[in-house]
Structure formats: C-alpha cells, structure tokens
C-alpha cells in the first residue's frame, strides 16, 4: 500500500471504531439530545469524510457540480440534517461515508496491484549496459551507448541493446519477450535482441542499434501506450457516465418532491416529506458510476497485459475488441504459415544409388552455387565438401549445373537439363522444386525441395475455425501447384497464388468490400513487405516480430514468436476480456437499476444503498482482474 492508501486505511479504522463505540454507548448512557448526538457523530464523520467535503466544496466553487464527491456530500449532510430535524438517526450518514471510503480504498489497491502485475510481466527494461572502460567494466546508461560499441552481458543480466555477438556462447531466456519458455542457444555471429536474459555464458555484443530503437524500447513503448487507444465499450462508458450522474440527480429531486406533493394535494394525506427526502438521498448514494468507469478499462488493461505475458502484443484496447469479431483471416504464406526456408523434403534415388549418395552428388555438384536451392542441398548433406574432388564446373543458365566429381560426370538440374541430356526421368508425385541428378550419363534420381510448413500451422487454422473464423484465405507469390498443395494440407478455404505485393492489397480490398461491416478481416503477415496490407486490413497481425521494426510499426497486433497458433490464442484472450467487460456492464447496470427501483418504491434504506454501490464495484473490479490471467487458455 502507498502512503496515501495507508492514511485512508487508518482513517477508516479510527472512524469505524468511533462509530461502533457511539452506537453502543449513547443509548446506554442515555444521551437523547439531538444536538449533542450530532456533535458526537460529527467526530467520526469528519475524520472519514473531510476530504470529500473539501472536494465537493471546491467542485461547487469551480462549477463542476455533478461529481461523486458532491453526491456523497449532499447525501450524508442531508442525512445529518434529517437526523436533527426528524429521525435523530446519525450513524447512517457516518456509515455511508465509511463504506464509500472502503470502496475507494479497495479500488485503488486493486488497480495498483494489477498495474504492478502487468509491469512485472513486462519487466524487460534494462537498467544499465556494461562497457569495457579503462578501469575494467563500467556500468553506463543504455541510452548513452553508441551504435557499434561492444557491450558485455554477464550471466543473469538482460541484454540491454540489440546487437550481434562477437564473442561467447550462451543460452538466452526469451520468455519475457515471446512467452516461450524454451531457452535459445546463441554463439558468436548470432543476432541478439534486447530484453532477453543471458543465462549461462559471458557474451560480448556489438550493438547494431541505439537503445531508443532497440526492440525492448519499442515493446515497452507499445505496451505503455496501448491503453491510450480506447475501445468502443470504453468510450460508451465514459459517455454514459456523463449522462447517468445528472440523470440520477434529477430523479432524486423528483423522488424528494413529487410523492409528497401528490400525497398532500391529490391524495389529501400527510406529505411524509422526511421519508421521501431520505429515499432521495439514498438515490444519490447509488448514483456514483464508479463500478462501471473503473472496471471496463481495468479489464482491457488486464487483457492486454495477460496477452503480452503470452508473447502477444496488442497495440490498443480497440484492437483487442476488434480481434473478437474477426470472421475472415487472411494469411501470407511464406514466413507465416511456412518457415520461409527451403528444405530437402524427399530424396528419391533409382537403381543401386542410395539416398545418401544421391544427396552427396547433388550437394557437391552444386557446391559453387549460392542459389537458395543449392544452399538447402548443402545443408541437408551436412558434411564438409572437399572442393579438390570437384572440377570442370559448368553452370547452364536456366537448366542446372554439370561438374566432374571424383572423376564421374555429374549433372544436377531441372527437367530441361534432363531433356537436354536425353535422359528418361520420373516425375515426383508431390509438388515443390525438383532437382534431377544424373551420374555418368545415367539418370540417378531426384531430390524434392520445399518450403516447409510450420509445425503449428495446421493446428492454427483448425483453432481459428473453432474460434469462429468463417473463412481462411491464403495469399502468396508462389506458384499455383505449391500454393494449392499447402492450402490443401492446412485446410485453408481459399488460395490466391502468383500474386505481386500490390495484388495482395487488391485481394484484401476485394475481400473487405464483400464482407459485412460487423465482420472484421484480419491479415497475418511476417512483416516483410507486408506493411501496406497490414495497415489496409481491419486488423493487421505481424508474426515473428523479434527485431523487425517495420512489422511492429505497421501492425496492430504483434506476435513475438513465429507460432501461428498464437492467433487463435489472441482471439480467445480477446473474447474472454470482452466477456468480462460485458458481464460487468450488465451486472453493474442491473444492480443499480434494481436498487434505484427498490429505493423509490420499497423505501430501501441508505445502508443498503451504499452496500449495493460498493459491493457492485468490488465485484466488478474482482471480475475485471480475471482478464489478466491467461495462463490456462490453450494456444
């Protein structure tokens, strides 16, 4: 608790004890003079309520009448006046003030706690960077480190600035950024991003960015500003609060005046002013819109915080809200649903050739080429290639390569090369890029190379379907057969292939035009040259944003790791948060309306009014803090 909160707590305790004492003692001692009672009860009343009275007075002075301080002041002072005039009942007024303050204290503690929880989740801000100076290691402010400086990251420390490792081997804990608990192995030459925690070895890192441009700064900035973009339901509540309070005040006046007048002049009964004034005062007590006003942003804040703990950064409450309404999910293929890296997926030798030999020939013959296909062959081969064994390398443009390997003439390339060599070859069943290999004028087999589908892609699409997405669409620049086979494998509903970046924008626009306004369209891309599409869609989701500034800037939702299954998780978090928001709105409004009706028609006392008011707020706040806990939601 902060100092301020403690002070309020002491005031609550002191005045509660005094109130209880007065309620027990005064009847026993037999004090019946109303004025003496008033003075006695004024002591706990002033202790608990002096600041409210002060604010109410200032409010009137500044012509800001309809605020909760004013309402509480009018209600309690009114009750005291009524006590002197008729009832002789003073404890009610003190109790109302007391409960009100307990409610406020609870609210401020709950908010403080959830704020702390969320900052703890996002505790990635590095405090210093180690730079090697004249007197050994020096700790400096990360902001002062220039690009290109070599910084030292010791085990247990956070990487303060993005950079490349120049020396050292270690494992990094990226969980604060990605929600991924598996540590990442790094060695010299690897890029590291700020915010990761160095777990084992000492690392020397050459910085590639300034602190302000580093991943950690960008993420912190994003999370801290996310509550500035308000959701529709938040705006609704603030508008509602503005109307609600004055409305209840006028209703209170009506309750105080109308029934007695009706009684006196129409029904010719006793007017019973004091009863109706008391009801009106109770009305004022219920009129504070606090439960609503606090619980809605608190829920969104919790939802955004809970999502970032799972490696999903959402740039604003409005996007969290939109996410729940996504019915069309459009994907980019390469790097989003697939890994974007070519890999050997099938080796099919003929005759006496073994798989290993075929791959070895292909890798050797292609060893001079830098083409992604050649690289993937060498990677699949995995062994050192002895260049002295390879001679007479000849690249035939658009066909392939021929070379002498171990004295044998090896050719590797596409169908055209095989046709040129007048060799019979068998075509593979599956789609992909095919490398045919011939050794000594004999067809030896083929190797199939494909962009590999991510492990979770299929699960991700299925998850989205069960999360209520109507249609999944895949856009790609890749060739038709490849695109279609991947779409079939993943159960994507629609595919558009052989698109240029500009065509992707057109496709998304066409989809946007077709759909209903209430149904939202999301585009998921890896952030590389997807920026225009990301910003065109209702909501842009960028994946694998570790270190990609463009993505963080263009997208509305950023997934920190490459896992497409996180999209469905993000939707679940969004649904849960919205669910909580609606529960709170409905619950708080229903309770308030019921209370108002009970007060007006059943003469429910001020005690119950304040209990209902504070109780609703406590429950709403507790419900709102649930939004923070996303651990049990499966990806």
């Amino acid at each position, binding site marked *: 608790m902060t100092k301020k909160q403690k002070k309020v707590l002491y005031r609550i305790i002191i005045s509660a004890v005094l109130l209880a004492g007065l309620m027990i003692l005064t009847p026993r001692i037999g004090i019946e003079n109303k004025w003496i009672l008033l003075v006695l009860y004024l002591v706990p009343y002033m202790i608990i309520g002096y600041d409210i009275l002060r604010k109410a007075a200032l409010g009137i002075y500044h012509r800001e009448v309809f605020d909760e301080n004013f309402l509480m002041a009018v209600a309690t002072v009114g009750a005291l006046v009524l006590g002197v005039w008729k009832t002789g009942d003073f404890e009610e007024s003190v109790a109302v003030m007391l409960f009100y303050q307990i409610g*406020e204290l609870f*609210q401020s503690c709950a908010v403080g706690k959830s704020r702390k929880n969320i900052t703890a989740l996002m505790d990635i801000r590095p405090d210093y960077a180690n730079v090697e100076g004249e007197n050994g290691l020096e700790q400096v402010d990360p902001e002062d480190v220039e690009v290109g400086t070599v910084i030292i990251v010791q085990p247990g420390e956070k990487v303060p600035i993005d950079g490349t490792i120049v020396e050292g081997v270690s494992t990094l804990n990226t969980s604060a950024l990605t929600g991924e608990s598996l540590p990442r192995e790094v060695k010299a030459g690897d890029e590291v991003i700020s915010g990761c925690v160095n777990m084992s070895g000492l690392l020397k890192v050459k910085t590639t960015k300034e602190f302000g441009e580093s991943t950690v700064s960008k993420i912190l900035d994003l999370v801290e*500003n996310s509550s*500035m973009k308000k959701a529709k339901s938040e705006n609704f509540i603030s508008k509602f609060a503005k109307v609600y309070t004055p409305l209840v005040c006028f209703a209170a006046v009506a309750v105080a005046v109308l029934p007695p007048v009706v009684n006196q002049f129409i029904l010719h009964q006793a007017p019973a002013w004091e009863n109706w004034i008391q009801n009106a005062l109770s009305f004022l007590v219920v009129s504070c*819109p606090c439960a609503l006003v606090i619980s809605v*942003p608190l829920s969104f*804040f919790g939802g955004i915080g809970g999502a970032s703990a799972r490696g999903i950064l959402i740039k604003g409450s409005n996007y969290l809200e939109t996410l729940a309404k996504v019915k069309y999910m459009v994907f980019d293929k390469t790097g989003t649903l697939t890994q974007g890296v070519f890999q050997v997926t099938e080796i099919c030798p003929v005759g006496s050739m073994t798989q290993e030999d075929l791959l070895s020939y292909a890798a050797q013959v292609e060893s001079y080429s830098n083409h992604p296909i050649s690289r993937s062959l060498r990677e699949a081969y995995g062994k050192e290639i002895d260049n002295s064994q390879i001679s007479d390398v000849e690249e035939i443009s658009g066909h392939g390569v021929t070379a002498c390997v171990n004295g044998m003439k090896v050719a590797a390339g596409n169908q055209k090369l095989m046709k040129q060599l007048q060799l019979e070859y068998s075509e593979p069943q599956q789609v992909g890029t095919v490398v045919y290999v011939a050794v000594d004028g004999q067809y030896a087999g083929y190797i199939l190379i494909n962009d590999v589908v991510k492990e979770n892609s299929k699960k991700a699409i299925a998850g989205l379907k069960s999360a209520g997405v109507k249609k999944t669409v895949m856009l790609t620049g890749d060739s038709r057969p490849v695109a279609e086979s991947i779409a079939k494998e993943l159960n994507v509903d629609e595919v558009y292939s052989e698109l240029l970046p500009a065509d992707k924008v057109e496709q998304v626009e066409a989809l946007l035009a077709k759909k209903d306004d209430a149904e939202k369209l999301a585009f998921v891309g890896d952030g590389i040259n997807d920026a225009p599409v990301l910003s065109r869609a209702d909501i842009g989701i960028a994946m694998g944003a570790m270190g990609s500034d463009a993505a963080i800037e263009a997208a509305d939702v950023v997934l920190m790791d490459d896992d497409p299954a996180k999209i469905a998780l993000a939707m679940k978090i969004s649904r849960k948060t919205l669910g909580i928001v609606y529960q709170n709105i409905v619950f708080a409004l229903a309770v308030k309306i019921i209370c108002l009706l009970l007060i007006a028609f059943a003469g429910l006392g001020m005690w119950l009014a304040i209990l209902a008011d504070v109780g609703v707020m406590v429950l709403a706040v507790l419900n709102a803090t649930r939004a923070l806990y996303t651990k049990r939601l499966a990806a």
Partner: protein
Amino acid sequence: MKKTYKIEVDCANCALKMEDAAKATAGVADATVSFMTQKMKVEFDEGADVDTVMKAVAKACKKVEPDCEVFL
C-alpha cells in the same frame, strides 16, 4: 506534436474528467488519459507553445479534480 506526461489521479471517473478538461484547453488538439498507466498523452496544435499549454492543462485538471497531479 505529441507528448506523454506522468500524472497522478485516484479515481477512474476523475481521469475521464481530466481528459475532457485537457481536450478543452486551448492549444490542445487531442488528449487521452490512461487511468491504468497514470499517463496523459497530449497532442498539441501546430505552433502551440508546449510549456504554456501544459500549464493551462494542469490548471484545468486541478479545477475538475483538486487531488490530481500532472508532472510537467
């Protein structure tokens, strides 16, 4: 130009009132107050003097919520 300021405010409704007060201040194009992060983001009109505008904003906020604080 946009700038973010740290604020101190105790109740959510008061934060809303501060937001309205800030928006109504001359020289302010738009303002948002986040009760949760205790921050105020102010977008200034072109050519407005940030210091004077912010002083006016702080004063306007004090008026609607005497207990608030805007750290300039």
